């Protein structure tokens, strides 16, 4: 990466967004006064590094085909004051998946959104959920131990900006031996009339032998273009397990960077499903650091893009110790002028023997204007390993199409059916049945072009009592 500092000072040119960020850092730091010393230091350090590197652009290998270079020349409002609690979340979002209840937590414009005075709840089983700002004061040990320590791979300009500028975010702590029954659903909403850049920061810590299922939904309420820059740090303790579902359904003008870094301890288990349905430009970064033997990471994603949307999945798995398994499966359908980028990177370190790593990326292009760039990388320094990767870009199977049409199914339905079958491989990996059914419905709706940005939560789009079906006479098949 060519840093800005390598340039001649007289040619030292910052883009509009970079200049704005540099100018507002002091004010931003003052607003955040009263924070832990370590946070303040982290902010300063990140800021100094950012001044040298700037924001990534097309010249940076990992951002070559990314649309995010359009962001750097726009001016965004960098700060929005904490919104007052005016509406219940349930009034804005109706999340009703039949037979599936979640504990809803929400961030509005990057702020933890709650009616309570102290935005941090401790539940009976010891689970702590709330604002990260409050958590750093009330639980300094847990906070200090993990904050800024997990998101250390693939650091770039935007993640530095996040560290330097974040206002608030979600904090979850699950103590040892606690199995959280009810899924936690984090809804990130953006409701603004200004063009806003939101930097929010989440920290999730799972103690030994614990379990949590977390849904992370990105939604926009109105159509104002904004830039959402989220960094999530997750620590999974020994023998603990986390199911992480990410649902993304934002408007076509919004740029979203969702950078999630996970540190996995011995025998821990991580399962991620990223479901991207709509968005102007979405960049999902997933950095998984397997730091304990026997850890397992199962990373899946599906993306269904159309119009001029772009989705960019950057998946990095670091096998630092022996006997770990990782698996990546990302599938996508690209319509209209949409584009997708997949960069999977498995790094097997010198001593990480007996590693199993698997990577697959399949794409279907529907039009001659859609584009896919896929880069499944392997970097291996240990010999007793089984690593493989595969990538394909193609179309729907002609033979299958022929067979379906021969049975009297019209072309449109046959295409839908095959696309759905293609996408279902990923959706099938969702363990929670009601959620799976609901997501499958969303996928069907999305493929039929009925689901686009709606004012309610994406999950509300399905009617749970009447399952979605294709209008196909199955008796013909």
């Amino acid at each position: 990466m060519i840093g800005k500092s390598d340039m001649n000072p007289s040619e030292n040119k910052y883009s509009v967004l970079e200049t704005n960020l540099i100018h507002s850092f002091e004010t931003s730091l003052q607003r955040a006064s009263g924070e832990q010393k370590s946070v303040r230091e982290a902010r300063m350090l990140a800021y100094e590094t950012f001044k040298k590197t700037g924001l990534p652009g097309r010249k940076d290998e990992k951002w070559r085909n990314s649309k995010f270079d359009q962001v750097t020349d726009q001016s965004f409002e960098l700060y929005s004051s904490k919104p007052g609690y005016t509406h219940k979340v349930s009034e804005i979002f109706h999340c009703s998946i039949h037979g599936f209840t979640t504990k809803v937590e929400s961030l509005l414009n990057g702020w933890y959104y709650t009616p309570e005075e102290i935005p941090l709840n401790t539940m009976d089983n010891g689970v702590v959920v709330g604002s990260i700002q409050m958590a750093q004061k009330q639980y300094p040990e847990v906070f200090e131990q993990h904050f800024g320590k997990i998101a250390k791979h693939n650091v770039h300009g935007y993640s530095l900006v996040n560290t330097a500028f974040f206002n608030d975010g979600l904090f979850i702590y699950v103590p040892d031996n606690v199995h959280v029954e009810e899924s936690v659903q984090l809804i990130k909403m953006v409701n603004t009339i200004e063009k806003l850049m939101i930097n929010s920061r989440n920290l999730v810590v799972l103690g030994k032998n614990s379990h949590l299922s977390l849904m992370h939904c990105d939604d926009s309420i109105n159509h104002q273009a904004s830039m959402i820059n989220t960094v999530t740090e997750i620590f999974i303790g020994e023998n603990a397990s986390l199911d992480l579902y990410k649902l993304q359904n934002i408007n076509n003008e919004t740029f979203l960077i969702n950078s999630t870094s996970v540190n996995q301890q011995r025998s821990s288990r991580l399962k991620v499903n990223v479901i991207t349905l709509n968005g102007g430009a979405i960049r999902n970064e997933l950095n998984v650091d397997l730091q304990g033997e026997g850890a397992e990471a199962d990373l899946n994603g599906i993306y269904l893009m159309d119009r001029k949307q772009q989705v960019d999945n950057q998946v990095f798995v670091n096998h630092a110790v022996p006997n770990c398994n990782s698996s990546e499966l990302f599938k996508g359908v690209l319509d209209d002028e949409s584009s997708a980028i997949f960069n999977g990177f498995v790094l097997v370190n010198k001593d990480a023997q007996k590693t199993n790593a698997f990577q697959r990326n399949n794409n279907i292009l529907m039009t001659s204007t859609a584009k896919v760039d896929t880069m499944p990388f392997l970097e291996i320094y240990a010999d007793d390993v089984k690593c493989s990767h595969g990538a394909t870009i193609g179309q729907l199977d002609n033979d299958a199409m022929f067979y379906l049409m021969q049975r009297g199914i019209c072309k449109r339905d046959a295409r839908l059916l095959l696309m759905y079958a293609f996408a279902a491989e990923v959706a099938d990996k969702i363990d929670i049945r009601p959620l799976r059914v609901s997501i499958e419905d969303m996928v069907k709706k999305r493929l039929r072009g009925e689901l686009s940005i709606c004012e309610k939560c994406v999950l509300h789009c399905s009617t749970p009592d009447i399952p979605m079906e294709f209008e196909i006479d199955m008796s013909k098949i």
Partner: protein
Amino acid sequence: MAEDKDQNNILEEVTSGEYKYGFYTDIEMDKAAVGLTEDTIRFISAKKNEPDWLLEFRLKAFRHWQTIAEPSWAHIHHPPINYQDIIYYAAPKKKKQLESLDEVDPELLDTFKKLGISLEEQKILSGVAVDAVIDSVSVKTTFRETLSKNGIIFCSFSEAVQEYPDLVKKYMGSVVPYRDNFFATLNSAVFSDGSFCYIPKGVRCPMELSTYFRINAANTGQFERTLLIADEGAYVSYLEGCTAPQRDENQLHAAIVEIIAEEGAEVKYSTVQNWYPGDKNGKGGIYNFVTKRGLCKGDRSKISWTQVETGSAITWKYPSCILKGDNSIGEFYSVAVTNHYQQADTGTKMIHLGKNTKSTIISKGISAGRSNNSYRGMVRIAKKAGNSRNFSQCDSLLLGDKCGAHTFPYINAGNETSVVEHEATTSKISEDQLFYCQQRGIDAEKAIGLIVNGYAKEVLNKLPMEFAVEAQTLLAITLEGSVG
């Protein structure tokens, strides 16, 4: 445990063999002064009695080269190269015009004999025409007469510049422009010699053409340039082999190979590269930065690259195909073996521009010792390249726990009628296979050789006969110590 240890020992033994081709021929050299300036370029150009347009081409490249920096994206590490500390031109002193092999410097013949490719033998037994390049200038071209009966031009690049300037002018730089990349630009500025080959319309070259490159004098970079043109409906199979003697300082090699296949033409380009890889401790060896590219210019043309890379301290090489003509075909078959401290970053680029174009990539990497072996490839399907098809497979085999094997594929697809498939695996040599071989009384060393050869077979099969035998031996030498 004891067995484990045994096996480790054997692995170590078989992977620690030393370079057999380390010898140094004492031939009088005619050298340029150390360093690179416009004067050096004028000196080279004058020495070779070149026309003005070629000097101009070199100078343009040199001026551009001064403005660009060495690329750093490859997965290789080496101390910075001081480009001012290299002799850019070295030629064996011409004594007189040579008519027969007897007149060739006996030491030179000896060099070839040690390589196992003595000109006599080649000439008499195998029927392969050899254009031997020793340190940049062609000394002897064989079989030229036979070839010229068919209208085939096969000569050194300098001769081509003198005798066929129109052809050279038309095609040189049309596939690898002088601004292409750092090393190609450097080559365009200072290239010394190389081979030139032209197959006229509808001619099927009756024999396999072959060149042996050899880096000889210390501190002389080798910058050769090959231009191969197959006119409409022509066919040629071209072999290139390289060996460099043992020297401690790293030597730089930055070559360019350009291939043009017109309508319906087919070119098969095979390389066996066994340059000095440095010793067991990673000292010395050749830095090999090569730009190879073929242009399937006409419809239904085909270019096929086959390479066996066993040598060089650093290999930086991506033989590519630009599939411009409709229905054209590009192929890339590669075996890359690295041992000790060798580093290889090699692969291919398949750029599909024409409709119904097809490409196949088969790459087999084998790493041993403390080496690093990377596959880096790009498949790009342009929007207009409807119905194009690519299949890539790159496998890596790891022998030993201190080496690395890496895969960096880039796939870009821009239309809905094309299909791209890529798959790769990385694993160590199968313990089951080893066990069964040993159980049948084959010792571990031979078993490894057997398994590795079987693993690389798919690629070795694509080599012409003479080369296939040599390549197998080379694999054996690289991996099995002094057995060969």
